[in-house]
């Protein structure tokens, strides 16, 4: 794996400007979807806990 190989990989035969944005957009959307689920769960647990404590 030489530097030229790595450079060729990123160059993607000239299509880099189309391929890499496509992969990055996908990664951003899917990862943010995933992290949103985590944040949602924390938020719900906290909200329900506050509700329980005010009711108690």
């Amino acid at each position, binding site marked *: 794996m030489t530097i030229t190989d790595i450079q060729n990989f990123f160059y993607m035969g000239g299509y880099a400007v189309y391929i890499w944005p*496509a992969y990055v957009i996908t990664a951003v959307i899917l990862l943010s979807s995933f992290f949103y689920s985590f944040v949602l769960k924390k938020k719900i647990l906290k909200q329900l806990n506050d509700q329980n404590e005010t009711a108690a």
Partner: protein
Amino acid sequence: MWSFLHTLSAPKNFYHWAGKILPIFWILTILLLSYGLIDGLFIAPADYQQGDGFRIIYIHVPSAVMSLMIYMIMVVAAAIYLIWRIKLADVIAKVSGPLGASFTLIALLTGSLWGKPMWGTYWIWDARLTSELILLFLYVGVIALRSAIPELDKAAKSSSILLLVGAVDIPIIHYSVNWWNTLHQSATLLQFAKPTIAPDMLYPLLAMLGAFFCYYLAVMLMRARCELLVRERKSSWVKKLISYRNWEIKNDNN
């Protein structure tokens, strides 16, 4: 099997069962994603016509397939809710909406980026692209309709009916490349014949498809559990869960 599914339809059982099998889907997602991306980006040979540009296929096709599959899952869930009034079915339909919309958006954007070098245009109003765009509008419409109605039952019914009416778009999307003279190519995978794609290119594609499906299942189960916690917040099992977590947090802080 039906009695197992029947016990699962109770929110408490589903919450705990989903929590147990979630890690399996995450592990599968990571494994399939690693194989699919490494093989697809590095090892699969370049296309004789498109060169390396064809590698967008490993994102575009799986997300497009998922956009259709999730809609069909939502249709089945909505039908189960309307016929048998099983609330869990409505929960699954509700949380799958944003995920389906995300995959539709990814399919449209990556397809657009693939179209520019190969077709010379980012967009064209041919049958496949137009019907997929309509699918995006359907997803957004179903999500918006559900959030616009405050009563849970009415919202569920209305969005289910909109979803079922929109289901006619799914066969249109799939068969559009046969029924019309489209710029988008016809089916190579989902046809009633042997796939015409080379095996070297096919296997990472199937892996990415599996990875996206496992990802959907994992995130859907996570969000379904969250939705169940909210809907069942007055029930004793949720109260117990919250107070146990509270006790855990307090004891960790000491």
